[in-house]
């Protein structure tokens, strides 16, 4: 199979992630969509590593996983605090500051 197809798949996954961020209201799901975008990037890195025959992409994928894990910790912490304060995980309700 043409390895470029993996890059295309990664782009599709990334787009799905963007779409999720834009349309979903639940903070957790928005957050998962962001994670999907990161993992789409990971897929692209791995596919590119295979394509180009270098190892950098594989190493990067591991780094990104670690960073994503850290991001999950921080993100969930923030979402949970907000949930406890507002009793809601809707990101549209957090819109006191505008204009």
């Amino acid at each position, binding site marked *: 199979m043409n390895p470029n197809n993996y890059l295309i798949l990664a782009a599709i996954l990334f787009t799905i992630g963007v779409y999720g961020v834009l349309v979903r209201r639940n*903070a957790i799901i928005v957050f998962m969509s*962001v994670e999907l975008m990161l993992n789409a*990037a990971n897929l692209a890195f791995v*596919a590119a590593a295979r394509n180009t025959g270098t190892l950098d992409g594989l190493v990067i994928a591991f780094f990104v996983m670690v960073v994503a894990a850290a991001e999950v910790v921080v993100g969930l912490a923030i979402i949970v605090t907000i949930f406890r304060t507002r009793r809601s995980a809707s990101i549209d309700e957090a819109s*006191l500051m505008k204009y």
Partner: protein
Amino acid sequence: MKVSVEYQALAPIIILLASGVLSVLVEAFIPRTLRRPIQLMLVLASIVLAFAYVVINATAELAGDPLVNGGQVKGLRELAASGSIAIDGPGMVIQGIILLISFVAALLLAERQIDPQGDAFASRSSTLPGSEDERQFTAQGWLQTEIWPLYLFCVGGLLLFPVSNDFLTMFVALEVFSLPLYLIASMARRRRLLSQEAALKYFILGAFSSAFFLFGAALIYAATSSVNFSTVAVAMENSSQDGLIIPGIGMIAVGLLFKVGAVPFHQWVPDVYQGSPTPLTAFMSAATKVAAFGALLRVFYVAFGGMRWDWRPMMWVVAVLSMVIGSLLAVTQTDMKRMLAFSSVAHTGFILLGVISTSAAGLSSTLFYLLAYGFTSVGVFAIVGLVRDASGEATHLSQWAGLGKKSPWIATIFALFLLALAGIPLTSGFTGKFAVFTAAIDGGATPLVIVAVVASAVAAFFYARVIVLMFFTEPPVDGPSVVVPSALTTVAIGTSAAFTVLLGIAPQPVLDLVINAGLFIR
């Protein structure tokens, strides 16, 4: 392959990150009453030490004594950590600026005389706003010290960000300084709801933008089979894979332009600046912007330097939008912090002029502008934090009426900062704007400079409006007052004011410094 680590060159970053780890341990093992003084000393000492190392490295560099790969030709800049980090002239200047600002901002974060209840941060961030728990902790005078390890990691990340020489290091650095910022943003003592909202917005949009950055890096990697800036630059010259490279450049630009707060990636700026604890806003508006511009400069000068004819028009669009929309929207703001946030967006546009010129003059003028703007910005937000009434900070513009009569000194210094932001001669803002505009004209961006001048004129009006409000209006009867801060804030404001004036009257030594810093290593 022999792996070597150039400890001296990397010392500033290592010191900050190690202190961060140490600081976590302090948090875990030292009794509560001792934590605050120890943490504070740790923070200040590590920043001073790191700064000392930056100075030592820079002096060695100027003396032509290469730090790392001994015996290289004089003037050749240094690559460290197997080429992942570039400690070159501009990099060290930016590190120096970040450390100076971090020191001043740390003083602001540590201030606890302004708010009668304690410092600017929630007594315990885990308690619900308005709950019985929170009241008790506040009544007992709890002060949380968790912000300090976060702060140290954040500064460490900021130091790494502008000297990263490949996309992976840059991405990691980006997250290392962003994650602590998201957390500290949610911890304001007053108006927690706004504070948490700011953190949520900052986090979601920040993660969104860094995903763009990462995907862009993946595309560049797919096209050039490397993430190292110098290799990427060489590979791009001969590459035919435009279908990957052009979207890659665009997506990386999205990630970096988000961090500098350029239009149309600016919408987080006002909300986050308004909701965050004011000392943190002071820090973010200055240090984060400096580091992000450092990274932006490096990526677009080194990695994409050969493609500048491709990305320049894109930057033109962004710069024009930033200047126009930033100035335009600041006009109708009624909240001081939001107004300053939009002004910061407009300043991003001005600084982008320096980036666009892609010349030695463009680089040095951008560095100068960053130093000038950083200090003015810290100072301006420091003063915003001082004007308070019973419910906390009084940030509505109407509450600032007649401040010049009640507190002439503070109002005068505030006016000085505003004049500097407006770019009035004899302040640092003028010199900075001037240098950047000159570089842009030399770089063939005269139309942009004309837009910039018009935007500055619009901007001058809303700064002047605040000055008029402070000095020529009667104060409201039950208006807020200026709190007398402790020595910490006084020193911070004094330093910022001194820089603002000095860089306006006698900028030449600093201009010489940034010019001598030379170019990025390729």
